[in-house]
């Protein structure tokens, strides 16, 4: 028998990585039609203490009776004790979740995935690009950066949505606009109502249009992108055109997942697993990972 | 004064039926039994299909007696092609029929008929008060289901019932298990027999004069000869000469008559024949001696008791069939089938009555013509006659009561 296997077989039984922790919903906020932000707290106080994550990581959330779903953490690790998840109602399990309210029990395991390389990003400019629900994991990054603002150079946030109604974290993002330490550019697919007008200052179009307006030295900048799968191709192209290095552009990818820890296979992207090797990938990987975007 | 009584949906029957009764000046002026179920064009959809598809398609005529439809069509195809199966295949087919009777008769007795006599709208609702009776119903059904699943592959529409035999056959161990199970349900069937003997059947004499069934000591054993209670017998090839079908002016089922008369088929006709000809299985005969009701009978309601008698027959036959089967192992699960042009006939006793299939094939084995006569069609006129009689007897009663009596009667036929 090989030594390596002998070692593996003789290890004490590990804790079951599939066993989630009980958590309770403490708050639900309706952000936009079909989009709700849920705040959770673990029932066991020590679990709250122990919890920490990196922006960009996700959890496996058990929706009682319906099943487990992978959801990005949208709260920042710098704010201890709470986990916030923003969930769009798209199907079987999310529908059931949307019916739950404060006091209801769920179960959570994680955090999983690699998260954004925040430590490497320190000391650099950061450009954050969010499309639609993609703002969720990036919200975690935004607050992480803002809470440790001194560690980073200039920060930009580009955010595109369908219209004002679909904008998530409306208050929070409006307030960010006021701040001096982050530059926010918002755009809408359609500007129709006065609210739309106010939100994007009348800007209508695709998020790619904003990239050219960013005043950052590309080689000194890390880019974090999250949005619908179809958007990556265009955003990537535009970023490269503007001189951002491929190895400094990070995208968050979504795949079907059943386990979160590299066992079920559903999330394979080329030779990598989105759950353990991702969900954050440098754009450079697109060259090597067919079907990535 | 004109009174119209309509039963728009007969409940607790397998098909869809309605009864219209018109009473004028305290006299029955019109009565109609209508089958409202949509036609499914079986004689049409079997056309141009290969002979191998026929049993599968006609299986879908009825989900409760699919074994009979499948086998009747298989007999017809084999008749057309001159196929002779071996004894083992024949016995397995009989055993399948045992399964079908156990399931179909116990379904009818416990789930469709029994609530009428126990005063419940449904057997399911009896479960609280009579859990054991309900469970016995399930248990008997299950015994039949297991046999059908074992041989046919599924409980309903098992696909392993083919022209020429079977794709595979059960092992001896599996058959022995079935035998053990059959022996175990025999006491339950006896209990059923006495339960149904003890029920309060309405006094009723059906006006029909003619009864018909296959000439065989058990519906689980096959025959190609048809028996009429007036002493006539004829072969399956002559079926259409005797049983004449007409399109009904108000029902989706066709109407049949023999010698211009309505005629009784089904469990009561079969059991009546066995008594008349003294052909009852000896073990069944023993049990039947202890019953308070007697056969032959013209009380249509006793079809229910006749079903219970047949259940017992089926179980005993099943045990015997398995014994013979075990002595035949190993045998070929199927025989070769070579299609040729021609017409074939198949008759079989389905749980609710005699069934007739006829197909004509071209030389490559594609169907070019079909005729299927179902028990429901053949029962239509005899049930109508019965209804007429029962309504005339009940003219004094309340409308609801008349309806109720009519329903119970129709249900006894399990159309």
């Amino acid at each position, binding site marked *: *028998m*090989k030594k390596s*296997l002998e070692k*593996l*077989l003789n*290890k004490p*039984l*590990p*804790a*079951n*990585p*599939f*066993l*989630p922790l*009980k958590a309770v919903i403490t708050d639900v906020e309706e952000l936009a039609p079909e989009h709700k932000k849920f705040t959770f707290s673990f029932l066991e106080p020590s679990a709250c203490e122990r919890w920490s994550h990196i922006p960009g990581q996700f959890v496996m959330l*058990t929706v*009682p*009776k*319906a*099943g*487990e779903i992978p959801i990005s953490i949208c709260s920042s690790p710098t704010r201890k004790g709470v986990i916030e998840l923003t969930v*769009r109602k*798209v*199907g079987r399990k999310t529908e059931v979740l949307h019916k739950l309210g404060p006091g209801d*029990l*769920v*179960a959570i395991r994680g955090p999983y995935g690699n998260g954004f390389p925040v430590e490497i990003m320190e000391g650099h400019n950061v450009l954050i690009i969010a499309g639609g629900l993609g703002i969720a994991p990036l919200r975690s990054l935004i607050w992480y950066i803002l809470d440790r603002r001194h560690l980073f150079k200039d920060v930009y946030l580009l955010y595109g949505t369908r219209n004002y109604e679909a904008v998530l974290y409306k208050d929070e993002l409006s307030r960010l606009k006021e701040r001096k330490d982050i530059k926010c550019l918002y755009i809408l697919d359609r500007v129709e109502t006065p609210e739309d007008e106010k939100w994007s200052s009348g800007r209508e179009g695709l998020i790619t249009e904003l990239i050219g307006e960013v005043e950052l030295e590309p080689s000194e900048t890390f880019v974090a992108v999250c949005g*619908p*799968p179809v958007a990556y191709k265009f955003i990537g192209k535009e970023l490269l055109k503007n001189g951002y290095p491929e190895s400094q552009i990070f995208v968050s990818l*979504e*795949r*079907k997942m*059943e*386990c979160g*820890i*590299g*066992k*079920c*296979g*559903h999330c*394979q*992207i*080329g*030779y*990598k*697993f989105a759950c*353990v090797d991702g969900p954050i990938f440098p754009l450079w990987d697109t060259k*090597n990972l*067919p*079907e990535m975007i | 004064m004109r009174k119209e009584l309509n039963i728009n949906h007969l409940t607790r029957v397998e098909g869809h039926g309605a009864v219209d009764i018109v009473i004028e000046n305290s006299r029955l002026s019109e009565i109609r039994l209508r089958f409202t179920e949509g036609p499914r064009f079986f004689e049409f959809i079997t056309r141009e299909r290969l002979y191998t598809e026929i049993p599968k398609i006609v299986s879908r005529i009825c989900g409760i007696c699919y074994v009979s439809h499948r086998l009747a069509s298989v007999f017809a195809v084999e008749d057309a092609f001159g196929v002779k199966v071996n004894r083992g295949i024949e016995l397995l087919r009989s055993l399948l029929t045992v399964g079908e009777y156990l399931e179909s008769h116990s379904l009818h007795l416990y789930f469709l008929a029994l609530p009428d006599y126990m005063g419940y709208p449904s057997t399911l609702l009896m479960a609280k008060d009579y859990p054991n009776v309900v469970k016995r119903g399930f248990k008997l059904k299950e015994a039949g289901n297991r046999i059908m699943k074992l041989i046919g592959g599924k409980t309903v529409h098992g696909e392993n019932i083919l022209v020429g035999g079977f794709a595979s056959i059960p092992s001896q161990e599996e058959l022995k298990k079935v035998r053990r199970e059959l022996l175990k349900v025999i006491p339950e069937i006896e209990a059923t027999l006495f339960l149904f003997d003890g029920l309060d059947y309405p006094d009723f004499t059906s006006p029909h004069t003619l009864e018909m069934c296959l000439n065989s000591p058990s519906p689980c054993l096959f025959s190609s000869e048809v028996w009429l209670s007036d002493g006539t017998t004829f072969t399956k090839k002559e079926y259409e000469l005797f049983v004449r079908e007409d399109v009904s002016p108000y029902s989706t089922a066709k109407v049949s008559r023999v010698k211009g008369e309505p005629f009784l088929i089904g469990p009561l006709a079969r059991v009546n024949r066995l008594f008349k000809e003294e052909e009852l299985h000896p073990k069944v005969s023993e049990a039947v001696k202890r019953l308070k009701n007697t056969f032959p009978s013209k009380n249509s309601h006793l079809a229910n008791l006749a079903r219970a008698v047949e259940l017992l027959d089926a179980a005993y036959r099943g045990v015997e069939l398995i014994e013979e089967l075990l002595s035949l192992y190993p045998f070929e699960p199927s025989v070769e089938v070579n299609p040729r042009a021609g017409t074939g006939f198949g008759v079989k006793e389905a749980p609710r009555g005699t069934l007739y299939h006829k197909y004509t094939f071209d030389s490559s084995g594609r169907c070019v013509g079909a005729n299927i006569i179902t028990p429901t069609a053949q029962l239509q006129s005899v049930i109508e006659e019965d209804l007429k009689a029962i309504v005339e007897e009940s003219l004094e009663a309340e409308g609801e009561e008349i309806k109720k009596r009519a329903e119970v009667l129709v249900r006894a036929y399990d159309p």
Partner: protein
Amino acid sequence: MEFHIDRAKVLPKANLWELLEGLKKRYKLIAPVKEGEKFAFREISDVSSVELNYTRTILPPKKFLLPYRRERFSYDPETMEFKSSFKAEEQVIFGIHSCDLHGISILDSIHLKENPDPRYLEVRRKTILIGISCFPDEYCFCLSTGTAFPDGANWDLFLTDVGPDYFVSIGSPKGDEIVLTFKHLFREIEKEDLELYKRSTAKKKRAFNEENLPDLERISQLIELEYDSPVWEEEAKRCLGCGTCTNTCPTCFCYTSVDVPDLTGKEVKRIEFITSCQYPYYSLVAGEHYFKPTRTSRFRHRYYHKFVGYPYQIEKLGCVGCGRCTAECPAGISMVKTIKRLRGVDEKELREVTE
């Protein structure tokens, strides 16, 4: 001179049945049996049904380590208390061919290394693997994948047929224990046995037909470079997407999990069932978006995962050359032929080269 090595013994063929009887008494014994024209690993109740000269079973012995359908947990949706009903049994899987042992070795890497699965670990610990030598048929290509022989990786005993006897290699302390328990059935090795053993190895190698072997040299690179080859689409046209290739593969491990509530809603079972990358829903995410939308992309993915993915993840090829995916494919699609086509060698040419 007395010849003696501790890592091997000789089991005279006649003694095998007694060994199996003995094992059956102590453990759940699993071994190949014949079913129809094919073979399957089954729990054995009568050792005389064990089939020693089988080609390949329809399903690999994987099913006794990772059941195709298993309950991960059950839980009470009110309290969110999770319960695992998982139990591992002491079992012996007897008669595993070398390729399947390598297959298990791949599963070991997946389930024991990163994020180890305690369920797998427990089963694995309680399972004794006894291999047996074999000869290739036209579908086997384990010589190319380097899995034709057990390399001392993960089994307990390995029986090599050397004519009158089995040459028994001992791979683990557990294997040793078995030999000790049944001492009387084994004898020491003699020099001739070693000769016979070597000869049988050579004999197996020679039994492969070059035509049935793919060239797997730098296979990862080949698959990557030929990513856009028309061969994929041509082969995929015939693919039914039935999933047989992955379901029968000793190294495939993908599964889907669903929560199944009972009628009363008091208990929910979380069921994992094996699935296949060949099924469209496998890569379906919200918005009806299929990441592998075409038959071609699904077809290609299997090769990609086996020959690029596994090497990246666990530094081993994901294929052990057992030939099941080819032998069982209803459409007759052959892994070896696809690889040969990708290499641009068509069979006629190949014959010309070898002639």
